């Protein structure tokens, strides 16, 4: 090969192009390569030092949830034809991926009752920040009014982005577990670019989405963009954002057939009203026909995108989450029209059963009394960290430490408990027992966690 190139060595190819001064004159300081079995053992040893939802009874949620991922999702994601192609730049040989995007968009539109969806964005919180950018492009106003009920990661991400594109973020507090209606109406005016809330909110409470949207439009006018970050699984029982006056509905798609993966990759979904179509970020698959009249699919409305519009693009996103979105639409097809609702209703009932039984414990009280669908917040009359440690010792992860996540004083003692279809009544009862003993022990002033373990293994 060197002969064909006309060089005497590979080195020469580099020597002729890269100045000596910027060449690395030593080997990289990295371990040597290993055989496949050794790398496997190394990665397995690392995995063994994580306590996963396979290893303990896990009630963690707060944005990502331990739902059961059906085997067909893995099987399809692992097919070379879906796993290894690049973004479908050549539609004639990418109809599989393009049709999946089209189907995914259809499913998201159905879930949200909104007419347009893109083919996925990175994940939940940055989806909200991108929705904010859409609002800025749409009305070029100066302020976002956001509910304190948004996920703390969403608030943080939105602030980071908004500082970049130069928009002020004003936070509206909660009252009684949901966005304070007065403060909300108060904060919004004709300089408000977008009004943003979560459904259900971070504390698990179901917001009155229709009321919040209406109030926002009333105070900010039609140009204002109402944005909701919604939990797709909750939409099995909750009125869809499209029917609640929401302009743009975005959210975290992990619950839909994606693994936990310690936080990613998953996907963000992004749906909106027709009028925002040409300001959407990311890929959109559209239907068309080929020269022989066959139905086919292409990436469409690309004039929104960076590779065409460059500095005028509606977003800088390029590589997105196609494979995770495939998992999403396969999962939704697996659940099916009825199953999707059945699942929501099962979670609704189990979650309320869990909240009731937990709150019947001494030292455990509901943090709010709003309706909840799949997650709820309680306040412990004990040190949350200590209680969680005791539960962990008994093989139970009782949920997330609210204060650790929000840093809000009013969240001290708060515990956010998530329920999935993998958590049976028996699991919930075990949580109640273990948490009850942990709280009791802590309130007695923290003797050893042994009694908790005994309790748990009973």
């Amino acid at each position, binding site marked *: 090969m060197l002969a064909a190139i006309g060089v005497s060595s590979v080195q020469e190819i580099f020597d002729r192009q890269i100045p000596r001064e910027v060449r690395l004159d030593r080997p990289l300081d990295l*371990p040597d390569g290993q055989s496949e079995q050794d790398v496997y053992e190394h990665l397995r040893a690392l995995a063994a030092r994580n306590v996963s939802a396979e290893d303990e009874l896990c009630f963690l949620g707060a944005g990502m949830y331990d739902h059961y991922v059906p085997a067909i999702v893995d099987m399809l994601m692992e097919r070379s034809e879906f796993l*290894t192609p690049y973004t479908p730049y050549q539609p*004639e040989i990418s109809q599989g991926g393009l049709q999946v995007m089209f189907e995914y968009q259809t499913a998201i539109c159905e879930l949200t009752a909104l007419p347009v969806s893109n083919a996925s964005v990175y994940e939940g919180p940055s989806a909200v920040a991108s929705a904010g950018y859409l609002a800025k492009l749409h009305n070029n106003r100066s302020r976002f009014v956001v509910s304190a009920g948004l996920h703390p990661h969403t608030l943080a991400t939105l602030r980071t982005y908004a500082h970049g594109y130069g928009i002020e973020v004003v936070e509206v507090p909660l009252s009684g577990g949901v966005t304070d209606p007065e403060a909300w109406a108060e904060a919004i005016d004709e300089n408000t670019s977008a009004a943003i809330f979560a459904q259900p909110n971070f504390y698990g409470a179901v917001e*009155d989405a229709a009321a919040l949207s209406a109030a926002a439009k009333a105070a900010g006018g039609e140009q204002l963009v109402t944005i909701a970050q919604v939990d797709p699984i909750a939409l099995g029982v909750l009125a869809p954002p499209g029917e609640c006056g929401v302009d743009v509905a975005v959210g975290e798609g992990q619950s839909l057939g994606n693994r936990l993966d310690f936080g990613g990759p998953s996907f963000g979904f992004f749906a909106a009203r027709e009028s925002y179509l040409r300001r959407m970020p990311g890929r959109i698959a559209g239907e068309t026909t080929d020269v022989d009249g066959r139905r086919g699919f292409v990436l469409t409305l690309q004039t929104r995108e960076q590779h065409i519009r460059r500095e005028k693009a509606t977003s800088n996103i390029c590589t997105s989450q196609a494979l995770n979105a495939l998992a999403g639409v396969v999962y939704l097809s697996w659940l099916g029209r009825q199953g999707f609702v059945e699942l929501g209703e099962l979670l609704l009932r189990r979650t309320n059963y869990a909240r009731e039984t937990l709150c019947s414990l001494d030292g455990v009280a509901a943090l709010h009394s709003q309706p909840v669908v799949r997650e709820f917040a309680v306040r412990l009359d004990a040190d949350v960290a200590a209680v969680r440690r005791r539960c962990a010792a008994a093989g139970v992860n009782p949920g997330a430490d609210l204060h650790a996540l929000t840093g809000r004083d009013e969240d001290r003692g708060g515990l956010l408990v998530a329920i999935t279809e993998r958590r049976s009544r028996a699991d919930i009862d075990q949580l109640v027992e273990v948490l009850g003993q942990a709280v009791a022990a802590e309130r007695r002033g923290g003797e050893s966690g042994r009694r908790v373990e005994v309790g748990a293994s009973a």
Partner: protein
Amino acid sequence: MSAETKQRPPTHSTDTALQREPALTIFQRGAPGRRAFQCPELDVPDVPLQDLLPVHLRRSEPPRLPEVSEPEIVRHYVRLSKRNFDLDSGFYPLGSCTMKHNPRLHERVAALPGHARLHPLQDPERAQGALELMWNLERALSEVSGLPHVCLQPSAGSHGELAGVLLTRAYHEARGETRHKVLTPDTAHGTNPATVTMAGFEVVKIATNPDGGVDLDDLRVKADTDVACLMLTNPNTLGLFDSNIQEIARIVHEVGATLYYDGANLNAVMGLSRPGDMGFDIVHFNLHKSFTQPHGGGGPGSGPIAVSDRIEPFLPVPRIVRNEGSNDDGPRFDLVEDWPGAKSIGRLRGFQGNYGCFVRSYAYIRSLGAPGLKDASETAVLNANYLLARLRQLGVSEHLPLAYGELCLHEFVLSGGPMKRNLKIKTLDLAKRLLDYGYHPPTVYFPLLVEEALMVEPTETETKETLDSFAEALAELLHEAAEDPEIAQNAPYTTPVRRLDEVGAAKHPVIRQSL
């Protein structure tokens, strides 16, 4: 000639089984009441729903999701998958995308429950394996880039770019400066200028010199104290290394701006040359390119960034820290939101980033090791130059000359201008006809400054045999065009669908199945 055969592919619509198969969506299959999912039993009290959720908050109609059985789902998507071309099935020399082989070991280790079912909010003390993996990956990326500090959080390359430009903003603001401009060469990838705008800066284009590098004079003129940053790809999107890089760095730093390295082309220089040593302040990596995270038909990706000391205070949160454990019980890893001197720009997304991608790329780095990474880059560059040489030998470059330079690094850009004039076929036609030959075409019409650009990146995992047949296929395709340009102009003929009406699709967008 064509991918696997020595014959010319058909020059007429062949009406294959896949072409005859109508594109029915999953929503057009199934029947009412059919299902795959069996709901776990209701093991808690069957409370009436309205007692739990007021009607006005309730969904009134189930979404019109498919009603299909598992066998129908499997058959639908397995058949659909056959309408995709993929890297495991053929050569995929898509320039700028580094379509190297994705070892299956990576999928196996990423699927281990200890990784795949680990909740992102698991207490750090009970996620030590994950944090150590991320720490090790940070250290490896730091060593490869020659920059001391790494943040793995960004979800893809362009997300990394956004992080980088926001870091630049924070850096200047911390110094009490507000700068408005970011420089990008006209060879830049579209995400660069798009990012600049999103981050609230104004894009200023820098010209390219005859060697394909940055035009230093133009740079000197435009590099003033209102410039926050210069974003560069090196080797650039022409596959060429800018030998003036040190001078460029000097100019940029002189005006107090930062130098950003778009790492999409890192596959050319791993273990051979490091952005940090070139004077870059901020680098993003595309784990889904250089570090072989499978691309999934458009993601997931992962775009970690590496930065110099002066940028470090502004890094996104959370960060991973390593605490030397008390003697025997090894080091302990933790996630922190604050650290000495921190002035973080905050978060770019939820949780800690695309961990599943970290697992794969870390497995890759452990498999190759230092020598293996260097060997990968050397072979990638060797393959690109060999393919370029073969194309010259076969006379292809007469119609598709190299746009700039003599040699290249990991990829090269040809100009289809002469081909268009001599043979009456455009680069698009060539790309479409290549589909019939069984290849994924190279990147077309990018970079923009090259007329009828064709950007070829073979990567290190392809064999000489594959490069040879691809070169022969291109040569044959040009002969074919010389005989009859219409063959290419009307190509493809053998794909599941043929040329699609993209204009119509955009004029009257149909973006979901009507139900």
